């Protein structure tokens, strides 16, 4: 990697910079293919059972059919005492399509379970490069169909099912909404796209601004898309369900909540996606947070920026899903 000089870019928020001083070197800004194994270890989520018990959240692990019928692990997280008719959320985790597990970043959405009484289905979709496109997205789609067809067993209201995801998971959630529309699939009441990874082409201005700096830089993004798409990355054969920025038609989608940092590579593709939804007459809420780098709310939820992001998102989700 060449250190790019003379690139102007928005500064990180001071509270977030202070957080980076703590983490220094644990999460490299630049993830190359030879770092995938390292990231799989350092990004693995910590054991969750104590936290769930403390919050009175029940967890049931199930196997459901994934793409081509292969069994996938999912966890169903449910508030204590919930019986039937709850809102449902299908969750796609973060990790650049290459690492992470179904509990990565889950802290932030557990609030929906215990505060809004949501039944959450979080999916162990298969990861690239071992399982390239279409496995991750079609695993998620199979899990969506399974969830929609088991609403009654799960205690979920079939008219109140939302898809959500962060980073790579945000891209998958956006792809789910497109595929469900086109295939006449389950009806969704909303899509939460947190700093979503939408565009494999890597040509936006914000992508060029964050090269070798912050969390998840230009090269990391190439690594992720390369793992998913191989030689197709940036070419003309990429499915919009894998890279939703490729979609020509963004009409007829469920309401979208999109948030993104001003100081991250995904800024421009997130803004463009919201704008394309509006131009198609759709419903989107877009928040661009000053000084925020990628996924800073997971990393530093105690900061003013982190708290604001979480609060804005939770308010929207409550508006869509609350009883």
């Amino acid at each position, binding site marked *: 990697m060449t*250190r790019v000089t003379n690139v102007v870019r928005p500064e990180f928020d001071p509270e977030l910079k*202070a*957080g980076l*001083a*703590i983490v220094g070197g644990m999460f490299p800004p630049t993830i190359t293919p030879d770092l995938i194994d390292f990231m799989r270890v350092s990004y693995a989520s910590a054991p969750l059972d104590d936290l769930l018990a403390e919050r009175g959240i029940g967890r049931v692990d199930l196997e459901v059919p994934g793409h081509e019928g292969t069994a996938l692990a999912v966890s169903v997280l449910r508030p204590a005492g919930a019986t039937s008719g709850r809102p449902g959320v299908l969750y796609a985790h973060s990790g650049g399509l290459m690492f992470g597990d179904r509990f990565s970043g889950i802290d932030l959405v557990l609030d929906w379970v215990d505060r809004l009484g949501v039944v959450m289905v979080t999916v162990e979709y298969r990861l690239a490069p071992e399982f390239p496109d279409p496995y991750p997205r079609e695993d998620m789609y199979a899990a969506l169909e399974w969830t929609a067809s088991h609403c009654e067993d799960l205690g979920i209201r079939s008219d109140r099912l939302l898809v959500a995801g962060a980073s790579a998971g945000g891209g998958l959630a956006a792809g789910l909404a497109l595929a469900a529309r086109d295939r006449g699939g389950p009806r969704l009441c909303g899509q939460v796209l947190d700093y979503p990874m939408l565009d494999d082409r890597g040509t936006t201005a914000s992508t060029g601004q964050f090269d070798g700096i912050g969390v998840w830089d230009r090269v990391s993004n190439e690594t992720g898309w390369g793992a998913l798409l191989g030689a197709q990355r940036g070419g003309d054969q990429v499915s919009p369900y894998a890279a939703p920025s490729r979609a020509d038609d963004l009409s007829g989608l469920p309401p979208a909540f999109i948030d993104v940092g001003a100081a991250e590579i995904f800024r421009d593709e997130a803004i463009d996606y919201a704008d394309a939804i509006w131009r198609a007459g759709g419903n989107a809420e877009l928040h661009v947070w000053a000084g925020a780098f990628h996924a800073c709310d997971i990393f530093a*939820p105690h*900061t003013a920026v982190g*708290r604001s992001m979480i609060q804005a998102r939770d308010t929207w989700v409550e508006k869509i899903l609350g009883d």
Partner: protein
Amino acid sequence: MQELLGRIARLDPSASLGLRVIACFDELVVGNVNTRGLLAAAASLAGCSAGFRQEHPRRVLRVSPRGSVVDGDPPELDAEFMAPASDGLVVWLEREGEALPNDAITLERLALAVRIRHGRGRRDHDNRRHLGLLTDLDVAAEERIAAAVALGLSATGRYRVAAAPLFAVWVRHPDGPEDVIPTRHGPIHAIVLPESYDAFEASPCGVGMVSSVDELHHSFRTAMVALRLCAPPDDGLVCADVYGGLIDMLADTPEDAHQPDVARMDDVAKHPWGLTTVAAILATQSVREAARRAGVHHSTLSTRVDVISAALGFDPLDGFGRARLGLAYLSHRLRRSKVLDLPAPPFGT
């Protein structure tokens, strides 16, 4: 962030967590973060609520590890979890049970940061500590000497500064005054060593040139250059002495300075064999020796020297050509140094 500190300690037991806490509060102070933000950082680091009380006008603020304000009066706390920030200002950690390893340093830095935020600290260089002053050329000489004395250095002694990123791995840690210093490359862990120091092992780490106390700013700059010339894992610790006057020059040359020799070295580096061949030439006396070192036939090396001469526009083996080659090679590596960008994976795998 407490969970992150624990995770860092598990991945790298040698990580200097206390220094990371110091660097964190340094950034908060530089960024003018308010009291709630300071308490939120402390609470997040400690994994328990942190609080602050001001007597005039009376104000209490308690903040949880998630950054939310906690209502009500604080619990009774042991004196070890409280620290005066200034007259009529006190901060605390609401720890239940035994203190954790980083509690003392977190509380100390919180107290200092709150003091500065409330305008009770010294003015001017109020938020910087002795080592930061000592290594800054822009600080007046008498102030630097005073900082040196406060650190226990002899005003007539000769020392060097060692520099490392916070994620460096220390096998043996040298003794000497140490601190974190904010730089444009991020927070740097700096240690003052005597002129002749006991061998230690750290990676990546740069050791600066020897200097008198009032020139330690130069030693620090040369240490930064040495650090950025490290190439872990083979070459994790670089002492500036190896390059002497070349490093003195590099330390004071602006990185974006116009240097045609360096631009041409970029062309040499485009050959897969380019940099290893230049390194072999610089490390040896003759084409024959260089060929042996590079593991190629000497006619192959001669051909490469011709290509290098053509790219550079001078003969790298003749007269000042060798010196120009060396300087261009080091400048090229410095501009492309990744030492401060990447950790040393794969620990933990």
